[in-house]
């Protein structure tokens, strides 16, 4: 027998015994470790939160982090703040998640990114029943789910509202047809001095939101609730809605973002404005003693037979990084930040709409934000953008066509549904066009 043969002639029994011994040692070590370790204890170390810029009034997010730090000196949290631009935030968050360094514990994700981060394995599934999800509003909580699992907790919510010149429009339009009629009437009466519906019409995510709302308002859609691109009657209705948006947009379809829409509306030159609730404050508070604009706020209009209307549900969700080395502490932090008390502070003082139902019944909140009830109704009726991992590419392709149609007068391409379907798969263009 050669040495090579001896190598292969090790009795099976010894190999088996060795394996069994190894398994027993590992199991024992694990059991001992489990016995001496508290499975609920927070892991030591700083919790790092990667987030977009704090847009709350008076920096309330940081104030909450300060509260957490006072309560948990061994697990202090730190916010790494990114640009206010959503695309820039997404890029930095994705790059860090892909790098696999595990330096980030919590991501503050736009609601449209939850599916993308979950699908790519960048965030950790949250085990129910902990955290408790009772008490969250249904819509915001739905943005935290993907494929039936909970991946995040809703930090703040948002929904598009209709702001209108109450001196020129006594009652808010209940339908888009009424809104269009109001625009036509006031244009004629004022010679276009007061003009149209100031949505977000610049080439960014705001345009996707504004266009989707107009499409839904016409009973149309481009993607159904299952994430499939639709064709036929719903698509045609969506295109009709887009046509109406072009008709009611301010002259020249200016490239407006949220601030520029607000500026146009504040100047009195727009009859209606689509904007987020935070716009209410700057419209009604005039620190300079001037007479504020006479405005009203309402949910977005609906269709004749489908009332009320549906705004796009926005907001941000807090998720635990899949690479976090302190996931228990990170989850505890996001539970703290989304607790009823934190949500009340964020809304009451910071102006960020809460994701907890009970906050909307708080008298202090209602006193600070008179539009609270309208907002709550609008959130209940709001609709989600496609919950898809490749939503970002979908939005890019969608608004490229919409922007051309609204601003440059180009037609929506014949293969638009196919382009959207490819985009939802993450493809840059249908084969042969790319």
């Amino acid at each position, binding site marked *: 027998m050669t040495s090579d043969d001896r190598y292969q002639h090790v009795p099976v029994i010894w190999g088996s015994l060795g394996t069994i011994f190894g398994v027993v040692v590992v199991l024992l070590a694990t059991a001992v470790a489990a016995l001496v370790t508290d499975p609920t204890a927070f892991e030591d170390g700083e919790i790092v939160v990667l987030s977009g810029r704090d847009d709350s009034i008076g*920096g309330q997010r940081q104030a909450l982090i300060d509260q957490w730090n006072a309560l948990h000196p061994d697990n202090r949290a730190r916010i790494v703040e990114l640009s206010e631009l959503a695309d820039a935030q997404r890029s930095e968050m994705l790059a860090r998640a892909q790098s696999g360094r595990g330096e980030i514990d919590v991501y503050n994700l736009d609601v449209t990114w939850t599916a*993308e981060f979950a699908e790519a394995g960048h965030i950790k599934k949250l085990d129910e029943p902990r955290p408790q999800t009772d008490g969250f509003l249904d819509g915001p909580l739905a943005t935290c789910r993907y494929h039936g699992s909970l991946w995040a907790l809703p930090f703040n919510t948002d929904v598009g509202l209709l702001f209108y010149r109450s001196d020129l429009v006594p009652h808010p339009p209940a339908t888009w047809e009424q809104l269009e009629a109001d625009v036509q009437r006031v244009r004629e009466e004022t010679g276009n001095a007061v003009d149209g519906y100031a949505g977000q019409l610049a080439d960014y995510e705001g345009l996707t939101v504004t266009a989707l709302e107009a499409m839904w308002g016409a009973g149309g859609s481009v993607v159904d609730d299952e994430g499939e691109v639709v064709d036929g009657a719903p698509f045609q209705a969506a295109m009709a809605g887009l046509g109406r948006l072009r008709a009611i947009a301010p002259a020249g379809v200016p490239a407006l973002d949220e601030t520029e829409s607000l500026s146009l509306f504040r*100047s009195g030159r727009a009859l209606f404005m689509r904007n987020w609730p935070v716009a209410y404050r700057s419209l009604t508070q005039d*620190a*300079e003693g001037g007479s504020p604009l006479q405005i009203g706020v309402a949910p977005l209009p609906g269709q004749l037979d489908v009332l009320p209307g549906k705004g796009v549900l926005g907001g941000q969700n807090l998720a635990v990084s899949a690479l976090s080395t302190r996931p228990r502490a990170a989850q505890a932090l996001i539970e703290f930040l989304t607790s009823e008390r934190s949500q009340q502070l964020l809304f009451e003082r910071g102006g960020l709409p809460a994701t907890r139902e009970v906050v909307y019944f708080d008298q202090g909140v209602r006193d600070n934000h008179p539009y609270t009830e309208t907002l709550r109704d609008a959130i209940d009726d709001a609709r989600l953008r496609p919950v898809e991992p490749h939503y970002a590419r979908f939005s890019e392709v969608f608004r490229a066509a919409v922007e051309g149609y609204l601003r440059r007068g180009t037609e929506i391409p014949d293969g638009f549904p196919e382009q959207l379907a490819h985009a939802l798969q993450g*493809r840059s263009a249908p084969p042969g066009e*790319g």
Partner: protein
Amino acid sequence: MTEGEGSASGRIPGPLSAALRAATFVLAVLGIVLVAIPPNPPQTLWHWAQVVGGASLTGFLTTFQGRYELKRLRDSGTVVLDWVVRKRVAVGASIVLTAGLVVGVPPAWEFARGVSVDVAGCSPATQLRLVASQETVTTARELASAYERWTAAENHGCPAVDVYVYAAGAGEIRAHLQSADAWSDQSGALREIGPRPDVWLATTSHEIEGIEAAATTTPIGHSPVVVAAPKAVAGEEEGERRDWADLFRLLTDRGVGVVRADPKGSELGLLATTLLYGAGGARGERQLAPAEIERRLAASLDEGGFHLTDAPGLLCRHRLLRSQAAVIASEQQVIRSNLREPLGGSCAPQADAPERLTLLYPSDTRSVDHQLVRLAWSEPPQEGAARAFGEWLLSGPGRDAVVRTGLRPAGPYSSGPPFTTGGADAGAAVPEGPVGAATWSGTATAYDQAQRRGRVLFAVDTSGSMATAGAEGTRSAVAAAAVSTVLRRMGPRDEFGLWLFPDASGAGHVEAVPIGPPDEPRHALARQALGGVRPAGGTPFFRTMIDAAAVLPGNDSTRVDAVVVLTDGEDTTSGLDAGAVDAAIAGRGVRLIVVTIGEVRCADAGLSAITTATAGDCVDADLANLETALSTATAGLWGGR
């Protein structure tokens, strides 16, 4: 040992049947395929499972069964042929299987991937962050987009990379790359500028000197500095190859305005200055002194209504004003302008066709040499994606994409579109090499001495709305800090003044610091005034603009006269409108620069009109980037060094 002996002993694995051996072989190949397929390095848990599983499978088979077979062959080397003959069925089957795998696996794999994409969608693309200055960002966007499309075409329509391209000030980029904390979480760059870049498209090789964060640099293309003018102006010089000194003097002597980008904010502007000063070579008889060159350029900017900006901005304004001046720009920028392609920034496209510009190539001109800089802090998978992007730019498809942007790649290239369609002379020979570091620094020093001095009146909004607080503090406090910082950027020969509005009446202003030199007592006075602001009252900024412009002499070719207004709201108490400001200020030689925060934005037609009419600028800022925005907006005003 005969077949079956090993098995009979119960201790040695016996030789396997032919079918089993063939199956073993197939399994070993499968193991190799599994290792080869995932990206390197693996990006997901599944990739790791493939690598580890595949390697283990092949390793197991070769270690045990393969080792046994090899030993048998070694012991009886002469019987190999016999063995092959004896095992011909198994050997033949193995050869056929191998050939089948070699030929069949790639298309089958591609087919399976296609089906996978159809069913499950694309795998996540690698996120790549690319920063470029304003004058280069349009090129960066086009190249990134072309690369994304190219990777998608190779991959069932799925881009392998998702490039986020954004613009930042050239000075900001360099400053952060040179600082110790660079783009760290604590540096503020993530919030104020943008994501931590993996790659930077630098305008010139000069920009990357001394940048330690640069891992590799790839020269991707160059573009000669040219003089672009309407045909009526350039006609006599077309076809001539005069040198820079001669051409500049000839044009300006003829009364043709010649405008150049601001050398402080534009690499092209600084290179053009080098060429105009004759700093890179011998000075001829017709070479003008730097001070005279600057005087003529300043007069051209003022009289032509051009603001102090980069070359795309000048071309944009040239297009808007239908100017008859000549613009110093890169060949690429003029091609883009002639083809009515986006010029970047806030340059609005025009519906009607502007006049095409004729390109004049001075005989001693040089090029801006764009460099793709891969930054050292980038980690996998971004590091690999950045490297692949750089390599692609040097490949055939990449070079084609570079040409489509109007840049000349290194080496031979097709001089078809856009060069032919954009009016360029692709045959004009221009040295490709970089300008020396000493030449750049010599030019910067000479420019500092030659440029005209600034006389700038700051008017800061202190109305009630400036008490609004953000995460950074109140608007008023942030504005005060930003103005104080910007005042320190002045040279000793500049002058400044500071007004606050409104006054007690609500309709006027308070003169906190009258116009004068930037000595320390006046700086202290400014800091004291800004620190004592208590926001209250309305916003009479139209009235303030008119009053401020009236105290500046204007139309002085030795001075840049400017009013810089920092405001957060619309005019509430002047009783005036933008038209009144336009009528009072336009043509006086006083530039109006408005920096907005809060509710008012430059999209406001009135603001846009009055800043354009005075060759000024309007810049939207927010509290987080106010200091940067104010610095950038006023960078071209200071010159008294």
